[in-house]
């Protein structure tokens, strides 16, 4: 596949995440963009920085019973239950389309044991078109009583090491915000060899129907996403940027180019557009356009000038 070359009048939007070079900093967030094909009528997929696909487990998962989603103020809760086709069918059914797209494909993986993460990484190793792996550590560790890997620095590090040792592509660890201090986990996964961190995953929340006195999700609790969580996400990206040296991918309620660039100022080298894809399937491409317009208007040498350029004090 030919890399997209910059035209004369184009601005420099290129960023790097470890050894991964992106034509621009805009990715799609896992679980909000399917396996990309769903969006082909609405988005010029080739214009994205990268596509991050729906989280993949070792075996297929059916997901949770409905209702799985509920709208909340400026956001939504979901308890999809990590429904996915499993790594083997992902490789055979989804990767051929994805690898022909001409943009880096980042595969989000999840498991309920360190061993499972390791096995998925092994299966993905060498699969054509896999540009990087994003590790979802917000899943419960079944062998450790269901505590999420991402809430314990040691478990997060163990997963990171297991994945890192079994693949050649950059490993991005997706951090959970449901912790007392996100910087502790960020540092732990950096020490364990992560090439980058992405944050934030959804915030655990809940919604109740007063009339029926029942939870609005069959799973009772779910993950909050959308514009409502952006201030929390920005704060966490900023905090993590103070303590790690690896690149950060900012996620959380990004709907516009302005949102995306705020994350870059806070320290993110790239961003992911998530829930906004549901409302505007072209949101990720719109964010690329908006960033390009800003960089041109501000006459920046590169979008990289924004990374960590927050003025404090």
């Amino acid at each position, binding site marked *: 596949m030919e890399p997209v070359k910059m035209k004369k009048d184009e601005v420099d939007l290129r960023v790097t995440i470890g050894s991964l070079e992106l034509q621009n900093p805009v990715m799609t967030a896992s679980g909000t963009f*399917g396996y990309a094909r*769903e969006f082909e009528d609405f988005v010029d997929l080739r214009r994205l920085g990268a596509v991050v696909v729906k989280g993949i487990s070792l075996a297929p998962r059916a997901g949770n019973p409905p209702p*799985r*989603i509920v709208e909340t*103020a400026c956001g939504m809760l979901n308890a*999809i239950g990590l*429904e996915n086709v499993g790594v083997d069918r992902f490789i055979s059914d989804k990767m051929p389309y994805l690898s022909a797209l001409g943009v880096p494909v980042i595969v989000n993986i999840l498991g309920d044991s360190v061993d499972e993460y390791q096995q998925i990484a092994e299966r993905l190793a060498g699969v054509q078109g896999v540009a990087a792996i994003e590790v979802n550590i917000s899943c419960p560790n079944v062998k450790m009583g269901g505590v999420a890997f991402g809430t314990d620095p040691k478990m997060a590090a163990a997963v990171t090491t297991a994945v890192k040792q079994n693949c050649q592509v950059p490993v991005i660890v997706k951090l959970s915000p449901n912790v007392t201090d996100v910087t502790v986990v960020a540092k732990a996964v950096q020490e364990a060899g992560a090439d980058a961190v992405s944050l934030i995953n959804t915030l655990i929340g809940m919604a109740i129907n007063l009339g029926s006195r029942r939870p609005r999700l069959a799973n009772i609790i779910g993950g909050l996403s959308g514009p409502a969580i952006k201030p929390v996400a920005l704060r966490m990206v900023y905090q993590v940027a103070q303590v790690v040296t690896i690149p950060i991918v900012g996620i959380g309620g990004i709907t516009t180019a302005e949102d995306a660039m705020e994350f870059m100022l806070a320290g993110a080298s790239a961003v992911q557009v998530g829930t906004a894809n549901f409302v*505007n*399937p072209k949101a990720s491409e719109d964010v690329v356009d908006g960033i390009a317009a800003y960089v041109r208007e501000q006459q920046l040498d590169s979008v990289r000038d924004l990374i960590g350029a927050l003025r404090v004090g």
Partner: protein
Amino acid sequence: MSQFQKKVELVRSEVIARDVVRLTFNAPEIATVALPGQFVMIQIGSGQDPLLRRPFSIHQTASSEGTLQILFKVVGRGTELLAHAKVGEQLSLLGPLGKGFVLGEPGKACLVGGGMGIAPMLFLASRFQQQSKKGVVPKVILGARNSEELLPLIGDFEALGLEVLAATDDGSLGHHGLVTDVLKSINLGPDFTVYSCGPRPMLAAIHHLCLKENIRCQVSVESLMACGMGACLGCAVPLKAGGYAHACSDGPVFEAGELLWSL
């Protein structure tokens, strides 16, 4: 696939009955390719609250004029806001989405709509009517709470030259009771197909009746959904064989026998 995200103009807004609204959009791209049983996702307001689009089955299209209609009842904040949209306003529509009804022979079709489930039935009826050889038209059974709600909608079916068997909860029009009573009374042969949309208990009753009578049955189901295009996986519909389908991309129309009804 041909799906579009378009800003389209609201050209007509009608209050059909109390809290029941019909909106007509000038949406030629979507209207031209839409099929009965498919739906559109409409963005309500321009801000972030309400955040998500709302799904509406397509009530009617006029390909020659490029218009598309939806019919809905005000049930919450989203529909309340949409009911107050002004003629001339531009709204973002996404569609046509989902898999629609599989059309068989018009003379061997029975359409059953209940409440706002009548919405997609008009589109289906008109497509059947276009396909039918003279005089051979589908049977239509429509039910609602009362005559006030049902009467204006029946008129649209009659305008297509279709006879409507009515049922109302309060007996103010047609049969006093359920559409399933009417369906049972007309003794369809096993070579018929029932096409249905309405509240889940109604669909379940129709499914069970069809199962007993060995009649094929397609149902259009409703679900909460965020994206409408198979990405969020929020609109899970339990399957008889285990696991889930997704109302937005596998449906919203399903063979009734494929779904799990004992919930």
